[in-house]
């Protein structure tokens, strides 16, 4: 594989959310509106790139017996730095995200990429992999948040998109979109859509070379 594949494969074929079904918890919790989701996506992206790079650089010296603890230490430190940065430069959004920034530590995508990829690849490849996976997570999170904010509040980034009945327009906001379960439905539909699309693509003659679906490899880390 070359770098371009590391970057692009996570976006659809090995998307951490829709294909590997990882990192769902935060995707459900912070996708109510687009602005906090943007900050959350950027936070996960930064933590992912940092942890993949650090773990890859240290992969030669990390003792196997305690490597998981050390990986979590590195991830946790990166998360604290990101959390403190948000508290300094985006205090309002930091309050909206509250504990969910801290919970990036338990986001399976981060530890999953460190363990499954960065431990076995060089720093450049690991950064490319982190960028790809970070962008994939961001893409899904922002898509879900955009759908929820548009349908739930009639706005996008707090700018009115659909004129709501409350402000004299025609659109009655769908209140269910403001609650976490709606993210389940949207992500469920996305997973279904991607699976159907892959199923169709896999039957086309071009992809017969692909023997084992990539997502089966790391599925046991889901959570």
């Amino acid at each position, binding site marked *: 594989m070359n770098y371009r594949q590391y970057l692009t494969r996570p976006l659809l074929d090995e998307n951490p959310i829709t294909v590997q079904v990882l990192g769902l918890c935060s995707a459900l919790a912070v996708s109510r509106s687009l602005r906090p989701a943007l900050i959350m996506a950027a936070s996960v992206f930064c933590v992912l790139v940092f942890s993949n790079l650090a773990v890859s650089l*240290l992969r030669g*010296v*990390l*003792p196997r*017996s*305690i490597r998981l*603890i*050390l990986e979590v*230490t*590195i991830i*946790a*430190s990166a998360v*604290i*730095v990101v959390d*403190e*940065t948000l*508290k*300094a*430069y985006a*205090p309002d959004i930091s309050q909206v995200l*509250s*504990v969910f920034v801290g919970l990036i530590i338990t986001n399976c995508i981060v530890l999953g990429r460190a363990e499954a990829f960065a431990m076995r690849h060089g720093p450049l490849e690991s950064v490319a992999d982190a960028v790809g996976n970070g962008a994939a997570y961001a893409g899904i999170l922002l898509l879900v948040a955009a759908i929820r904010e548009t349908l739930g509040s009639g706005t996008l980034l707090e700018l009115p998109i659909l004129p709501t009945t409350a402000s004299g327009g025609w659109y009655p906001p769908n209140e269910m979109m403001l609650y976490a379960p709606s993210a389940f439905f949207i992500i469920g539909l996305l997973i279904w859509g991607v699976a159907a699309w892959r199923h169709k693509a896999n039957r086309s003659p071009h992809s017969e070379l692909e023997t084992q679906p990539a997502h089966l490899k790391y599925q046991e880390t889901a959570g």
Partner: protein
Amino acid sequence: MATEKIGRTLLVAAAVALGCSAMVSLAIQFLRPVQDAYAQLGRNRAVLAAAGELPETVSDRMVVSRYLDLDVRMVDMSSQVFVDSSPVGDARLYDHWALGEGSPLLLHVSAEATSDQPSLLPRYVPVYLVWEGQTLHRLVLPIHGQGMWSTIYAYLALNGDLSTVAAMQVYRHGETPGIGDRIEDPKWLSTWIGKRVYDDTGRSQLHVTRGSSDSPYRVNLITGASVTSEALGNIVRFWLGPQGYGPLLQALRGSTLPLNPP
């Protein structure tokens, strides 16, 4: 061989821990001033909101300049009078909530009041006066005390009569998100407006209780967050009582203490 391996494992663990903690401490060291500036801004905003001087949309710069325009007086909690000069410097910048434990600026009060109230009070407390011409329009009093899990910090604004609530503004707390943090709900806080804080004998009598909001001395508690909302009532009662601002307000109401616009 095995011991060497354990030695190396410990060494790598220590090195990673050291490196990570250095990174975290450096970042926090660097970010603290920015965080403090935002905290100061948030405090200014809360004071202005309680004072009724915060428009809907206002820039950060406007908040600071409006805050600095307020008439601030320093109260000496040991004698409960306004003091012109205090050892803590500019009253507008002084944060009496930032005093560390064991600070000489903390005052012991007799623990005669209910035990969950502070037994250590800041000696000097800044209060904010809003004037309308020559008459006092609002008096903003900082209050704090124990909630369910955390200390709640708030600003209570009284009307010019110094016995009815003009506004209640919760500034900071560590109650449970989604439960205790409903004390920040503007709708609930607006139910405080107009409540009387003293009964006819001058006792501090405002309570937060279940289902009796018709009374002028009662605010309805928040169902599901009863502990936190009742605590806010206890805090108000304590601070308007004999160990809080009670004697000061009594002197001001009875005009035994002169009060003039700046």
